[in-house]
């Protein structure tokens, strides 16, 4: 097996915070051991304050861990920070890495110089990113005059300018409208397909995870509580799927074994039945319905991931 692109061993970080007069230790990340292979796309999720950003700062050599060790791209993040910076592209959604008082174009060109790109490579990569992220229309605008959505696109381009192997995005879609989110996700998918980059992203938007990630890591109060697929995550918390049936005639609320009747519309013409995939299947529920009444149309709704995460939090006493 090849070397993992991210590997942590019992990684932990404490902060000392003043609480009135006393000082108190906040354990931001604790006993975090994980392994991410090159080419994976990982969603790193968790509630506010769970420790996501702290983890990212340790993985990139910005924060020094209190305990444990990390390796990113085969390098020691703190000791090899500058070499690592050439391999990783990072976007912190709420911070800018562009030069506030300069134009987007100038910012890109300074970054290209910082990363030592040849003029030819700089031009090619800038053109590619400008086109794919639709940055062209405000390339000459001062960064401080951009809208949030425009700036985010420019930020992502800036982080990817040096074609990093590993892309880490800390809330890249924060504050974006639906269309902008959609575009950014499409770009990230295309970028991954084209360059086989590894993606690690934190987000509170489950759409991001659904669309972009094939693996989910869930942290809760600094600890890793789940590592697997999104479907697997839904399963562990017993999230329900929903069968929606359109019936031939108005029907009183259906009572089907192993399902929960969620509601009826149009006088019983459309009914929604929730079921736990661990206990029954969509086919079995459908069969039970057709036994009683003719079904015109049907749809199966996948669990709402936000609901999944909410369940995890509430199950752990949040």
């Amino acid at each position: 097996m090849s070397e993992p692109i991210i590997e942590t061993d019992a990684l932990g970080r404490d902060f000392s915070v003043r609480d009135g007069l006393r000082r108190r230790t906040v354990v931001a990340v604790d006993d975090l051991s994980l392994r991410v292979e090159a080419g994976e796309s990982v969603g790193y999720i968790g509630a506010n304050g769970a420790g996501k950003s702290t983890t990212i700062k340790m993985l990139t050599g910005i924060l020094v861990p209190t305990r444990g060790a990390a390796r990113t791209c085969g390098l020691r993040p703190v000791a090899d920070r500058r070499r690592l910076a050439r391999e990783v592209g990072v976007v912190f959604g709420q911070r800018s890495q562009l030069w506030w008082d300069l134009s987007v174009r100038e910012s890109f060109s300074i970054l290209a110089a910082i990363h030592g790109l040849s003029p030819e490579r700089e031009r090619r990569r800038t053109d590619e990113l400008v086109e794919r992220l639709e940055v062209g229309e405000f390339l000459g605008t001062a960064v401080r005059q951009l809208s949030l959505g425009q700036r985010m696109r420019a930020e992502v381009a800036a982080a990817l300018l040096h074609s990093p192997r590993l892309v880490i995005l800390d809330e890249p879609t924060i504050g974006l409208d639906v269309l902008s989110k959609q575009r950014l996700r499409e770009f990230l998918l295309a970028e991954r397909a084209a360059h086989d980059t590894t993606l690690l992203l934190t987000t509170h938007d489950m759409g991001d995870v659904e669309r972009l990630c094939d693996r989910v890591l869930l942290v809760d109060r600094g600890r890793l509580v789940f590592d697997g697929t999104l479907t697997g995550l839904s399963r562990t918390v017993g999230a329900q799927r929903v069968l929606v049936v359109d019936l031939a005639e108005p029907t009183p609320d259906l009572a089907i074994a192993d399902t929960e009747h969620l509601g009826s519309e149009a006088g019983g013409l459309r009914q929604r039945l929730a079921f736990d995939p661990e206990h029954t299947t969509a086919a079995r529920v459908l069969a039970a319905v057709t036994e009683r009444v003719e079904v015109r149309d049907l749809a199966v709704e996948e669990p709402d991931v936000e609901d999944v995460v909410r369940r995890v939090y509430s199950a752990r006493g949040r």
Partner: protein
Amino acid sequence: MRTYWRLLLAGIRRQSTYRLAALGGLVANTTFGLLKVAVLFAAVRAAGGQLRGYDVGAMSAYIWLSQGLLGSVNLNGRTDLADRIKDGSVVVDFLRPLDVHAAAITTELGRSLFNLVPRGLPTLAIGVLLVGMDVPHGVTGYALGAAALLLGLVISGATVFLVGACGFWLVETRGLQVFYLVLSGFLAGLFVPISLFPDWLRTTAALTPFPSMLMYPVDLLSGRVVGAAALGLVGQQLVWLVLTLAAGQAMTRAGRHKLEVQGG
């Protein structure tokens, strides 16, 4: 090297976007300069035309050069670094394949160099036209003056960086900045030439990097100090350059381990 050259240019470019601020600074420099003329010329005349080696021409050169450098030599203690530590954007600096210390000083130097144009030269021109002043002697005088000026600007950036870098431990460094503001202007010779200080104060000043930032470049650019004495001042500057840069490197290395990154 190309990288830091590009950062220097970026520092210049960034500063160049603030034209109105430059104009405001120029007006302030000139006003304050005329005030210094009134006070210090009176002092020279009261002393019978010669005050500790300063006649009116030398005093005028001192006044307008020191005023002209005010936009370039950082005597207010404020740094980008301090702000960036406080609001957490310093994370971005650590995400780059750069020496954070060298990059900060290079950017600051770019700012300083740019300000020589809209603030330094016009202040000098106003001084020359309104009052007249002494200038360096010959090509070596100018060359040595220019070298001293460049050294002074780097020392200024390197010293004020140390104030900002205290933020790694303290987060809030405004108190230190004020302390720096009060101390640096005085000891750099901004208000009164250092030669006019009493002996003990002159010795104290020489034990700090402040005269290297302003007084020594001014002494050389005005042609007041020449020959071996001039080389001696440049030598002192080189010592301070090495000391302040080494301290900055050490503080950055130690500070990284203290850094907590504010604001999530």
